[in-house]
């Protein structure tokens, strides 16, 4: 993806305020539909975060469409608990088996709750239109990803 293309894509994303789950040409299936769905949803989450990030970094001008991105982040986060059905921790997915270990249940649930709480703050910050506030809320939201990724995600293959 060239820089110009990236800008165009983000422009389109921001302009329309809608993100469709685009499966990239490189995506390969894990062989498990539930895991594939989870990966696609995570990608959408990242794309919406990235779109808001472009504005926080001052690379794209703020527009009302950004509210859609923030709402998408909150919505995706709200559903995240359902993305991890038992049996979807397949070899090719980066989810560690520890996720389904009873001993980690609370820790895992709390990590998702932290993201949900932060994403609601992100919605408020984006509504304000204040670049510094948006940046701070993004940082806080991004920081919650590690709550799950550090203990529960395998390294990149």
């Amino acid at each position: 993806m060239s820089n110009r293309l990236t800008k165009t894509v983000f422009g389109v994303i921001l302009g329309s305020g809608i993100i469709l789950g685009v499966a990239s040409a490189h995506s390969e299936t894990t062989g498990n539909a539930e895991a594939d769905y989870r990966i696609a949803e995570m990608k959408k989450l990242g794309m919406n975060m990235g779109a808001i990030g472009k504005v926080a970094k001052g690379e794209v001008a703020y527009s009302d469409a950004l509210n859609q991105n923030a709402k998408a982040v909150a919505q995706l986060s709200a559903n995240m608990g359902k993305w991890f059905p038992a049996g979807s921790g397949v070899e090719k997915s980066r989810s560690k088996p520890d996720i389904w270990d009873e001993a980690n249940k609370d820790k895992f649930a709390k990590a998702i709750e932290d993201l949900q709480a932060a994403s609601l703050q992100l919605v408020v910050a984006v509504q304000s239109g204040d670049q510094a506030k948006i940046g701070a809320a993004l940082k806080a939201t991004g920081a919650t990803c590690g709550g799950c990724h550090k203990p529960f995600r395998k390294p990149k293959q």
Partner: protein
Amino acid sequence: MSAEYSINSVARIFGAALAVAFMGMLQLPAATADETTARGEYLTAAGGCYGCHTLPVEGSQPFAGGRPLKTPFGIFYSPNITADDETGIGGWTDEQFLDALKQGISPSGHPYFPVFPYTSYTKITDEDGLAIKAYLDSLPKIVQEDKPHEVSSPFSWRWLQWGWRLLFFKEGPYVAPEGASVEVARGGYLVDALTHCGECHTPRNMFGGVDNSLYMAGTPNGGEGEFVPNITPDPETGIGDWSKGDIVSFMKTGLKPDYDDVQGSMAEVIDHSLSKLTDEDLAAIADYLKSIKPINNVVKRASAS
């Protein structure tokens, strides 16, 4: 000690004397000790010394060493670089410190293993090197004996390092790429001399020498056996699709353009080193990384682990 060495040291002393004389002539105030120490603190952060020389365990003493560093050649334990006279580097002269930092030669004259990135630090200016020393000297002296390395022969044979050095160690100051802007030159100095990004992001040959034909193009088996990404500006396999702002923000916060958080050793590098740099220096690093040759290199794990 070769003849070249003594010439070097003479030149250094002479140069220092000359500099002092010049300052006197020009009525320029030399940096106060406090200023030098503060600059040294910044440069030490940039150099990432803390990461290797501190055991990553709650309550361990900064810079007292003892951290195991796993390499394909065995486990190396970092030494104590606090100013303790017995177990650290207390009492080293400026010249001994610079020889260690920039030549990889200990005060007793033995060559260090290149797990210590003197191959990059050789490009640090003497002035910056001595500021780092001033900072380390200002810290609490910690008494902690160095642990012996757990490296099997022949890699443990220190004398073989002389051969390794002939093959893979290029001594000398940092030289900016031709036609580089002030920012790119500053970024290049930071990257190649201090933050030593290439020590991990550039692949190594079987002898542990970096393969600069693949400068910053990533490797599947970096230190600790980690997957290390391609950070050249190649849009497909590197970070060509990252904006300058993306790179700066990543180094400050550890969050990627999609706001996912960084994994593995890079999290430490950001925590202890990059996040402590000024916005100006981070922007310079981003400018430099944008300016290097894009290399199309897909980093694939050698084996599924």
